[in-house]
């Protein structure tokens, strides 16, 4: 039904476009005299269409946003006195029942007459609100058209007005990126602050034990909850380190080989194939790590007499490393090809072999860019979720042994937040605290990396 409203408004504004255009042309006496107009006739149409659509849509979206809240407040306020003293959790349950009843759905408990009445009331209000919405939207569309229609005259600069609106739209679009960042910071920070009110921050940052299971009922045994992030963070770093130990040499060597040695044809084939590696969804890697790599590492380890956890840091790290290879190789490839040929020629002219040139001239020259790429890869490894969720285990062991199961920041966020949750227990809030840590760590890595890459690029340009 809401899409029907939008559709109607769009239809109306299409009519308004035709109306505006015709009006402008009529003012000067037809198509042949269109040059007398200050703007081209098309712009008068667009101008009127904007007057029709923008206010109406604005009202529509505000309405959609506010209507449920207002209606629920109204219904709750008119519940009998016995309901007024309830806690907010209970009240939201009651509200849920009312909503379900109004939709003809199933209720959690038995619905008493007060709730029945409230549901009836709610339903009536909804119908009323719907009619009111239609009236409001259509009125605003009509009023808009009238306003705009009056402004159209021969000397009216419609184009400037249209472009003004367009410009505002462009600016709004580019601020969405900023709003996203602000949204991330606020949503993560607020919830994390609520968490730190329950668990002191030094305990979180320096604690050596992580076991987020909380007692839900007071008489429950064995679950007190400990929120020390050190084991989780160590696990993250361990897996990231294994991944980087795979990805850096492989990525760098492939980049050097592809840019310095490989024949053009081989490069043209191999490069896109490597890019396929980058485009494979991480669940696929996770599945592969959990079902093929993990068990085979375990088998090999056991034949050597080592004890290997069925979900080991090594399996997750190895596969994650392969995932990051194309990332590092394509970034290094860019910086290596950006090294000017003069440097290579100079070195070769002195009698150095190609590998000596690469090792002593090209790589040092490209080093800042490569470091930047490695840091970006590191930030990916730290933030990677699905591979570790599927292949690294849940046990928060404080260990550096790659054959044991470890857990990571991202795994904990997923396990804490997937499933039933209430938003005031330290258990779920802890996920946001971990999210904050993750965001800050990757932010620092990214900023350094972007700075280094950018600075380096300027050198040869």
């Amino acid at each position, binding site marked *: 039904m809401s899409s029907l409203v939008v559709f109607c408004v769009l239809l109306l504004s299409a009519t308004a476009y035709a109306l505006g255009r015709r009006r402008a042309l009529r003012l000067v006496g037809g198509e042949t005299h269109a040059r007398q107009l200050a703007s081209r006739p098309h712009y008068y149409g667009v101008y009127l269409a904007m007057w029709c659509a923008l206010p109406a849509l604005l009202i529509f979206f505000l309405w959609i946003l506010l209507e449920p809240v207002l209606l629920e407040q109204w219904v709750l306020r008119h519940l009998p006195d016995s309901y007024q003293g309830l806690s907010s959790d209970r009240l939201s349950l009651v509200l849920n029942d009312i909503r379900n009843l109004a939709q003809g759905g199933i209720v959690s408990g038995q619905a008493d007459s007060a709730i029945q009445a409230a549901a009836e009331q709610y339903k009536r209000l909804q119908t009323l609100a719907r009619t009111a919405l239609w009236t409001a939207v259509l009125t605003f569309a009509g009023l808009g058209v009238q306003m705009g229609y009056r402004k159209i005259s021969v000397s009216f600069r419609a184009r400037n007005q249209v472009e003004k609106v367009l410009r505002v*739209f462009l600016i709004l679009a580019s601020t*969405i990126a900023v709003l996203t960042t602000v949204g991330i910071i606020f949503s993560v920070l607020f919830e994390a602050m609520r968490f730190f009110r329950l668990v002191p921050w030094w305990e979180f940052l320096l604690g050596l034990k992580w076991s987020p299971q909380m007692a839900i009922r007071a008489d429950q045994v064995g679950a007190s909850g400990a929120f020390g992030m050190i084991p989780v963070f160590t696990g993250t770093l361990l897996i990231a380190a294994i991944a980087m130990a795979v990805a850096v040499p492989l990525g760098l060597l492939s980049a050097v080989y592809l840019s310095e040695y490989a024949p053009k044809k081989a490069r043209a084939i*191999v490069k896109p194939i*490597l890019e396929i590696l980058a485009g494979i969804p991480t669940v696929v890697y996770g599945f592969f790590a959990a079902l093929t790599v993990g068990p085979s590492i375990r088998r090999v380890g056991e034949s050597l007499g080592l004890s290997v956890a069925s979900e080991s840091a090594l399996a997750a790290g190895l596969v994650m490393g392969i995932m990051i290879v194309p990332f590092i190789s394509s970034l290094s490839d860019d910086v290596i090809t950006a090294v000017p040929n003069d440097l290579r020629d100079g070195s070769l002219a002195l009698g150095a*072999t190609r590998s000596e040139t690469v090792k002593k001239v090209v790589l040092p020259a490209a080093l800042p860019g490569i470091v930047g790429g490695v840091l970006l890869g590191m930030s990916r490894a730290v933030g990677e*979720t699905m591979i570790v969720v599927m292949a690294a285990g849940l046990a928060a062991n404080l260990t550096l042994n790659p054959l044991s199961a470890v857990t990571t920041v991202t795994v904990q966020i997923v396990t804490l937040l997937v499933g039933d949750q209430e938003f005031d227990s330290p258990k779920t809030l802890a996920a946001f605290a971990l999210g904050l840590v993750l965001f800050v760590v990757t932010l620092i890595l990214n900023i350094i990396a972007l700075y280094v890459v950018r600075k380096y690029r300027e050198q040869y340009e």
Partner: protein
Amino acid sequence: MNKQVTLPSSESVSTSSRTVKMVQAGLAKRYRAEKRFRTLGAAAVLCALAFLAFMFLDILSKGYTAFQRTVVLLDIYVDPDEVHVGNLDRADYQGLVKRSLEKLFPEVEGRQQKRELFSLVSTGAGTVVREKVLEDTSVIGKTLSLWVPASADVDMVVKGHVDRRLPESERRLGDRSLQWLQVLESQGRVAKHWNMAFFTSGDSREPELAGILGATAGSFYTLLVTLALSFPIGVAAAVYLEEFAPKNRWTDILEVNINNLAAVPSIVFGLLGLAVFLSFFGLPRSSPLVGGLVLTLMTLPTIIIAGRASLQAVPPSIRDAALSVGASPMQAVFHHVLPLALPGMLTGTIIGMARALGETAPLLMVGMVAFVVDIPRRFTDPATVLPVQIYLWADSAERAFVERTSAAILVLLAFLIVMNATAVYLRNRFERRW
């Protein structure tokens, strides 16, 4: 005179021959080092390629069998006492299936044994009968010969994923069931058919009935939301930043910010979606709408960066030409520059969409992990997406789900390859060098 000339030259010859000797002495070693380095590089490339090939083959070998399913031929008597016009929808069709099995193995006695016998065929067998009856009510009272799906355990044995020679304790299908299966096979009542249900049904707890249509529809709606929002907003933002924004501190910060967002871990976007779209705005959980919004925020930076690059590639002479005949800056951009930059922007968008299609972690956060049997029809229906479906199935312990998971991965990869190939094709087709 002669002496003066030869002396230094003979000296230089002797020193240079010493250098030459030194160089030559080390030459073999250096050439070896050179060769080693080169081989190492080639090995690295081969290593990455081998991994890719191994992963593909592994998943392919695990998954290709899911495109077929084992079916059993049963003679089902559609009993008019059981099925009549009044209860066509609700009749006990599974009971009919059970009776036909009993007729095949009259010697089976006792509850326990009978239960084992009935578990040879899937609980979805009744549905097949029901559809047949609903299609044509004249079959009531007659005996139908129908291929019905076997249970997942039978399926695994027939496909050879579970070895029949294993001791009974190590397989899910007991010795008795295995014997019955052999009898059925010897009568030619067991076959493998193309598994259409895999593509036409939603998720199910029974592996032999589980399909990917629900997840595919969810992915489709989610991507539709993502595309509808991220493409216009991304293009608009790129146009503003590249063509109209003043160069000052603010736009500098904006640029750094966008580059940063492109590298923020995806799960953090999930946290944002959970806190803002679900908790604050109260949008419906598990819906493609919320999933699409989260993915929009994630793909926007990619599209903006690609968009700016392709706007930059349009030479200034185009703008100058438009401006010099009296176009406004806005007209110059929208009528002349943007159409030329659009193919590049499209490529960036397709790549962004491909990434969004494969994204899982943020969608877990906004509740798209729910077990959804129905196929979503609206943007606010509970839904799941392909990668999340893969994650859910990968979590199931049953052997039969490994096969489904691999098959779902193959489908997902097929979509991704098509999308990326389109991007490459567009790039080659419309790329212009100025």
